């Protein structure tokens, strides 16, 4: 890439973050700003896990641990040292960001070392276990401040002061994306990809497998740690219950759902999976009361979705089709689900028992989340984007209606 393009994209990134910050501050409420911050953190988490999981192929399911380590590094240091050092405000946050990344990278080293001996599911369970150990240890330790105050423990701790800078969070996310992307293009990244494909073969070709594996773990966990620092200072409160096992699973889901190994996929999946439950949480009926769904419409939707999954799988098994035909097929199925779900719901509403059973959509949100997860995996097991990445060239080609040069599929 030409130097000019590189400088231009860096400037564009900075300007974009500044613009986002200004827009969010001007237009959004406090609670909505928080969501924008959290979305940026999830993007960072998903992309950094993608480096370990999708690109290096090391099966890690304990990513929340590094997030937590970053958050608690910031929390403890802010409690004991904020105001005693000449760092204030944003410089403090940046210093913390670096420190949090270093601590999390060291933790990543500790977790990465077993990956030299363990493979696949055994490595997965060790990373899971490491995550749980961190959470339980943090929960069990109360430090006593010089003032006699208790810090940390199961109840959590306050992180003073609150520094919430949307631009910085997204700049960090962009940095994470850029580092991962550039790494993939470099010879080191190719070494990581070759380890994912076949460890033994790549070792035979001269790739330093142990070094590269540990490096992937350290880079990935450093970014998760940085995200943790930003979380701690943005929320101004952290507790062990904010970093449960489910969080690791959800980040892993983002990676796989977007297409394991695809950075674009990880970003899209992170934004979608973060936004959908939040959207469902805020859903209100037109008259302002909590939105409810009757048993009839629920059952109708479930039946329609199940039918659609069966049809799509059957079609995928029978016909291969071109990319455009497949896209059309997905679109038609989506329309079909909408129509069929409505029709079935209307038909079932003649059964009084189903019509009277009402459920609040708010409470349904996690059920919908889990259900759509299963459906997407069944319909498209390789993830939404597979291993494809977004690229300007391709977009231009699609706009010019040219056929892509290389075969895709």
């Amino acid at each position: 890439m030409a130097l000019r393009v590189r400088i231009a994209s860096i400037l564009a990134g900075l300007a974009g973050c500044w613009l986002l910050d200004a827009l969010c501050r001007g237009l959004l409420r406090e609670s909505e700003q928080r969501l924008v911050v959290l979305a940026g953190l999830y993007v960072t988490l998903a992309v950094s896990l993608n480096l370990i999981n999708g690109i290096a192929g090391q099966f890690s399911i304990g990513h929340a641990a590094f997030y937590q380590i970053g958050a608690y590094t910031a929390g403890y240091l802010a409690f004991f040292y904020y105001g005693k050092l000449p760092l204030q405000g944003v410089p403090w946050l940046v210093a913390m960001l670096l420190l949090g990344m270093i601590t999390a990278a060291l933790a990543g080293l500790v977790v990465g070392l077993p990956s030299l001996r363990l493979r696949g599911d055994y490595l997965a369970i060790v990373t899971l276990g490491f995550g749980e150990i961190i959470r339980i240890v943090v929960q069990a330790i109360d430090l006593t401040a010089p003032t006699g105050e208790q810090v940390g423990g199961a109840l959590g701790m306050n992180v003073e002061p609150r520094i919430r800078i949307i631009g910085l969070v997204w700049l960090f996310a962009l940095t994470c994306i850029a580092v991962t992307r550039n790494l993939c293009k470099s010879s080191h990244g190719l070494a990581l990809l070759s380890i994912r494909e076949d460890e033994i073969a790549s070792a035979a070709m001269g790739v330093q497998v142990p070094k590269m594996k540990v490096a992937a773990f350290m880079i990935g966990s450093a970014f998760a740690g940085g995200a943790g620092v930003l979380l701690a200072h943005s929320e101004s409160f952290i507790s062990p219950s904010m970093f449960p096992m489910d969080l690791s699973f959800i980040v892993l889901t983002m990676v796989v759902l977007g297409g394991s190994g695809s950075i674009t996929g990880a970003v899209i999946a992170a934004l979608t999976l973060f936004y959908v439950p939040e959207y469902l949480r805020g859903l209100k009926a037109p008259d302002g009361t909590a939105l409810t769904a009757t048993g009839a419409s629920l059952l109708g939707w479930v039946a329609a979705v199940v039918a659609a999954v069966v049809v799509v799988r059957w079609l995928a098994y029978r016909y291969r089709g071109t990319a455009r035909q497949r896209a059309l097929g997905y679109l038609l199925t989506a329309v079909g689900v909408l129509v069929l779900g409505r029709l079935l719901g209307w038909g079932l509403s003649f059964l009084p028992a189903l019509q009277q059973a009402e459920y609040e959509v708010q409470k349904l949100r996690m059920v919908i989340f889990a259900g759509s997860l299963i459906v997407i995996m069944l319909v498209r097991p390789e993830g939404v984007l597979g291993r494809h990445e977004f690229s300007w060239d391709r977009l231009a080609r699609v706009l010019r209606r040219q056929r892509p040069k290389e075969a895709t599929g």
Partner: protein
Amino acid sequence: MAPGAGLSLAAALDFGTLPSQVVNGVLNGAIYALIALGYTMVYGVLRLINFAHGEVYMLGAYTALFVSWAYGFRPDVPPDQLPESSLATLLVMMLASMAVCATVGVLIERFAYRPMRNQARISSLITAIGVSLLLQYGGGLFLPQNPPPTMNERVNPYRQTLELTLVGAPRELSQAVEAAREEFQKAERAFEERLQAEKDRFNLSPEGERLRDAKFEAERRLRDAESRLNSAQVTVRVSAGRLAILLASLALMFLLRQLVLFTPTGRAMRAVSQDFDSAALMGVNVDRIVTITFVIGSALAGAGAMMTATFLGTSITPYYGVLPGVKAFVAAVLGGIGNIPGAVLGGLLMGLAETLVIWAGYSQFADAVAFVVLIVVLLFRPGGLLGSSAVEKV
């Protein structure tokens, strides 16, 4: 930064209770072993971590609860009108739990895992996580949870505590306890009588105060004598319910062993777990074997759930299966995942380690010890205790 209470050493280790704790640890481990069997069998056949197994366990506990309600042990029934429980009631509950769990397990396999069988393993893993979340949150919608229901303790006919003295104490110590107890009872009776005569219960007369002090003094002497007796003798105290868990678990494991080792189905199962494709080529109906594996594994989880809900009286929530599920999975990996004796060994070790950590006074770390043991073991034996870590050949 001074280290707080969390890191300080436990005050004292009470070695008198150690034998009881060891026995209880083994009994806890029996449950982990039962759940771990489900994980390990599914993994052995499909190479899939069945994350929804813990949720199957949760559904088993709810089934047992509903059956006990059907028998009349509803929470709104006053205690004196509760029916009598018996072994037959427990058996019906267990069979119902096992049946429901087996059905759920088979449905999950048929509709969520089977379509994914030819895909990358991480995709089926995500599907498993999705099923687990779906059952958790779906359970949160439809199952009673507020307040979390508990099984009525009267369902369990084995409530007494069994006591086994391993090393008896010298006779004079037990005689001293008897004497102290008699004295205490005498002092207490005297004080109670005096209390009846007192005008003001909270402002005693000097005579009343003297009797009260005498009562406290006698009580203190009784406790002293008792603790001296306890530290001199070694006894094992186990609730009969826990013993029942162990016996039932052993029986189920024995049945499983016979099935796997000595029936055609078991042979087919072993063949599939050795090589899925070759087994199919040799005429094994692989789909049938996978279904049977899910039936057995889920039924074992159901039995375990019914027994914990009944005999240990823990309250049941939609998240009931999360922690036991994770720990049992760790137990399965510890023993060498895919290896049936390994799962039992891992489960027992896990129960033992956890109980001993609580006994040593680090109860806040009880949930972490499982993972510490696991990581240490895996560092030295990457394939688990009984598993084989075969070198990959090119």
